[in-house]
Structures are given as structure tokens and as C-alpha cells.
């Protein structure tokens, strides 16, 4: 539990990368950022792995679903 906290304290950063960049809304058209936060198979990173805060993880979840619907990102990559 304390591992993540210590790790971020070590680097002297906030936890969420969207909060650090002061992103108000996660843009579902920004495929580069969305694909950076998903696996090669197209699965979303967990909060534990991405380090997102709850608010931005919820926005990221919606954004990746919009991007999948518009065929910008795959539902399942082979």
C-alpha cells in the first residue's frame, strides 16, 4: 500500500499525470495519449498501473470507449 506513495514522493510529483498537466477533460480524440495508457491488446491500464486519479480514470474510461466506438482504437487487438 505504501509502496506507491513512497514511489511518488521519491520523484516529487503528483500522482495523476492528467492532474499534473492540468487537463480538465480527457479528450477522446487524442489517440496518442489513450493508446499510451492501454496495453498492446487494447486493454485499459488499471489505476494502479497508470497512476491516474479517480476522476481522470473515469474520464479516461469514457474517452477510450468513445474512441473504440468510432474505430479510432481497437476493442481487441490481435
Amino acid at each position, binding site marked *: 500500500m505504501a509502496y506507491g506513495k513512497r514511489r511518488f514522493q521519491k*520523484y516529487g*510529483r503528483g500522482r495523476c*499525470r*492528467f492532474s*499534473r*498537466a492540468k*487537463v*480538465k*477533460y*480527457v*479528450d477522446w*480524440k*487524442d489517440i*496518442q*495519449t489513450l493508446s*499510451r495508457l492501454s*496495453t*498492446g*491488446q487494447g*486493454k485499459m*491500464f*488499471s489505476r*494502479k*498501473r497508470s*497512476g491516474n486519479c479517480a476522476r481522470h480514470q473515469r474520464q479516461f474510461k469514457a474517452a477510450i470507449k*468513445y474512441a*473504440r*466506438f*468510432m*474505430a*479510432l*482504437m*481497437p*476493442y481487441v*487487438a490481435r
Partner: protein
Amino acid sequence: MRTYEGMFLLDSGQAVKDWDATVGVVIGVLERYCTELALNVKWEDRKLSYPIKKQKRGTYYLAYFKAPTEAIAQVRADLLLREEVLRFLILARPEDLPIPETLEVTTMIDDEDDDRRGGGRRRRDDRGSRRSGGGRDDSGDDDDNDGDDGDDGDDDGGED
């Protein structure tokens, strides 16, 4: 009256053949039901992540418009009948977000801001941390061939 963001996936073949007519379908529907068409631009022509209606490529068209809420259902119903529009997505834009004057999709996070450890980009499944529970990593039974690549099958004969 709200501001909406609509993305329309158009048939790439028809868009290449006659762009004005293909886009005119979308613009015609939007102008019929919506009050103000703020920004409408061709976004990108790209390969789709999965085929839609047997099409592997598509042209994305992005529009920001203001419309009464009742009009969106009519826009949807009208666009569903159009063969040129493969798929569309209409989202209500948050009130505090301004409509962009020009189309630009910038990356939200810079590369140097990415705090993933290890420097490089890790492309593997999200199940890596489970290995730490077993503690079998340092057991020393590495599967490389440990020296006994002995003399097997010296079939160097039979050439006369």
C-alpha cells in the same frame, strides 16, 4: 440550447470520389435541424481499427454545432438512413469548454511528462505484478542449455 460535438465517419471511397456531395449530406442534415454550425472540418482519412460495414478505411469529419436538445434525436434518425455515413457520435460539449476556432488535436501529455519507470515503452499485458507473489524468480533454474551440448549425430559422412 447546447453545444454539441459531432464526429461523422464517412465512406472513404465516396469521399475520394466526390467530397462535396458526401459532406453535403452531413451538412444538410445539421443545417436543417441545428441553429448554428460553428466549426466543421475534415479531420482525418485513416485506416479503421476494425472494419465497419465492410469498409477498412474511413474519413472522419468533425463538427461543432449548437442545437436544441430535441433536434439531436432527429439528427440521429436522419443520419442513420444515410449510406454515406458509416458511423457517427454526437456528444454534448461541457458548458465551460469553448468551441475551438481551428481543429487541432494536441496530445494532452508530453513525452517527458510520462512517468512510466524504465524509460522505454512497455508493451505487455497488465498482469506483470502477479509474478512477485510466487518468489520463484531467483531459483536458479534458468533454462538455458548448460554446457552439455554434446556430440550428437555427427553425420558428416556418406559423401563419396
